[in-house]
């Protein structure tokens, strides 16, 4: 590196180094003083002189030049960000050029109109264009193909989304139908068993004979089957033994959503005052009472 010790620099002899040190030219850490050749000429006076000689005094109409900054974009950043246009950011850069061109056009068009220079080509004016018609066709084809490709991909995406949604809706409908069927069957069975004599489920017509048979059993409505049996019926549906279907499965065992701690620990509102009244005091309390009685 440049700041290596001067002993490696063989061009300067020791005596010269000593002299330089005494003069104070050698500073710690900087032993090689590089002198840049006078590059980077910037002869401003010469430039100005040249410009003045070179400049042509022509009417604006001959030159058609506009020196203007950009159109202040109300949507995007403020004018201060123009200095911060990142040249690496392609889109931002091109937009800044575009806006500069727009500003120039907006300023120049009124001037041109005043000078009666046409800017728009009339429709019946046919003249040679800078790009041939063939070229323009190619460009149009390319644009069209790009657009088509985009549309196709959009359509495919939409189709996929719709299919997903359709599937979801279909499964929902099927599930709903299953549920309704199940409920209907349960209601029918309930009525069959005589638990409910309401014909709420619409189109079920029971014959009178069947109703008489269950008449005597109607008195047993209130009691009906056991609480345990009723619970199992509600959970697993009606009908007889279905191969152990009224047993717990792993999921139902792990499902503790119907656990009510107050009921389980007998901490809920007391089942009538009976239990409270019948509550037998504990051993210690009984001993105390006995001792007190003695």
């Amino acid at each position: 590196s440049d700041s290596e010790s001067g002993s490696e620099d063989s061009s300067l002899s020791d005596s010269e180094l000593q002299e330089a040190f005494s003069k104070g030219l050698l500073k710690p850490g900087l032993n090689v003083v590089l002198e840049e050749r006078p590059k980077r000429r910037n002869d401003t006076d010469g430039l100005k002189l040249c410009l003045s000689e070179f400049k042509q005094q022509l009417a604006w109409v001959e030159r058609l030049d506009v020196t203007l900054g950009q159109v202040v974009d109300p949507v995007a950043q403020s004018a201060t960000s123009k200095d911060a246009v990142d040249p690496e950011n392609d889109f931002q850069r091109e937009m800044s050029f575009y806006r500069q061109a727009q500003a120039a056009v907006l300023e120049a068009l009124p001037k041109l109109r005043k000078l009666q220079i046409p800017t728009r080509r009339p429709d019946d004016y046919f003249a040679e264009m800078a790009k041939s018609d063939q070229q323009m066709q190619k460009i149009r084809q390319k644009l069209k193909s790009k657009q088509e490709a985009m549309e196709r991909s959009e359509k495919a995406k939409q189709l996929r989304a719709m299919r997903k949604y359709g599937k979801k809706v279909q499964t929902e409908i099927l599930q709903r139908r299953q549920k309704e069927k199940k409920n209907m069957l349960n209601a029918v069975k309930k009525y069959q068993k005589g638990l409910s004599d309401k014909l709420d489920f619409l189109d079920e017509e029971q014959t009178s004979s069947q109703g008489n048979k269950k008449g005597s059993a109607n008195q047993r409505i209130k009691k009906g089957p056991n609480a345990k049996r009723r619970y199992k019926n509600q959970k697993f549906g009606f009908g007889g033994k279905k191969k152990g279907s009224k047993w717990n499965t792993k999921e139902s065992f792990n499902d503790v959503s119907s656990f009510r701690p107050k009921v389980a620990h007998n901490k809920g509102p007391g089942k009538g005052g009976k239990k409270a009244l019948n509550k037998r005091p504990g051993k210690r309390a009984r001993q105390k009472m006995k001792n007190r009685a003695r």
Partner: protein
Amino acid sequence: GKWKNKERVLIFSSRGINFRTRHLMQDLRTLMPHSKADTKMDRKDQLFVINEVCEMKNCNKCIFFEAKKKQDLYMWLSNTPQGPSAKFLVQNVHTLAELKMTGNCLRGSRPLLSFDPIFDKEPHYALLKELFIQIFSTPQYHPKSQPFVDHVFTFTVTDERIWFRNYQIIEEDASLVEIGPRFVLNLIKIFQGSFGGATLYENPHYRSPNMHRRLIRLSVAAKLREKQQVKEVQKMKKKGSKALIGEDPTEVVFETPAEEKPVEIQLVKPESKPIIKDKKKPRKIQRKKQKKLFRTE
């Protein structure tokens, strides 16, 4: 009207240019009706020969493309009899024929020139602006020109370079579409004369492409060297510093060499080991076979 502003621009190149440069040149000739073409110049001739060529063709401006090493493209813009002239490095060339440039304009229509405000701030930029205006603007009532103004050239200074774009004006509300071509100019020097003379300005931000490539190579090499050095240092660390310790005589004092064994030379071949039959061998073979079958399943 009468054509008064007699500007003629000579656009030509040296030998060794590639297709992109050739197309760019043709595009410029298309867009500028006041331009003239010439054959390729041999690089052996010196640059001031160009002045004579221009005089022969009766041109007072010149755009000269120079290709070096088949990689770098330089562009000279000059006002031929007396100067000034400027040399640029051209980068990022896109021609008219690119399919992403969708605009179109009349052949020979006059352009509107749009400059960045920076062009008015520095004297060298001001000189360049004047040069651009005189070269790129089509004179009014030129016989090959169309009287409409339907496209705009923009010159912007960004990142110490001059960016050129060409847009078509579609509507009166200034909606634009790019026509092309587009290129980026990196100013190298401005000379007082045409293709020679005193240097008026030298761009401090310019780095020649050779230097650029060299720096890239050096940086890569430096990285490699650093990696190697790091590896060596690690090796040294692993080995550990083997400090030389002098011979300690007290170490050797208690060393007693072992008794020498008598040398035995075997004359008779030793007995071979008895072969014990492996009772489990057939079973082992079977298990191996089963394993193989299982794996291939």
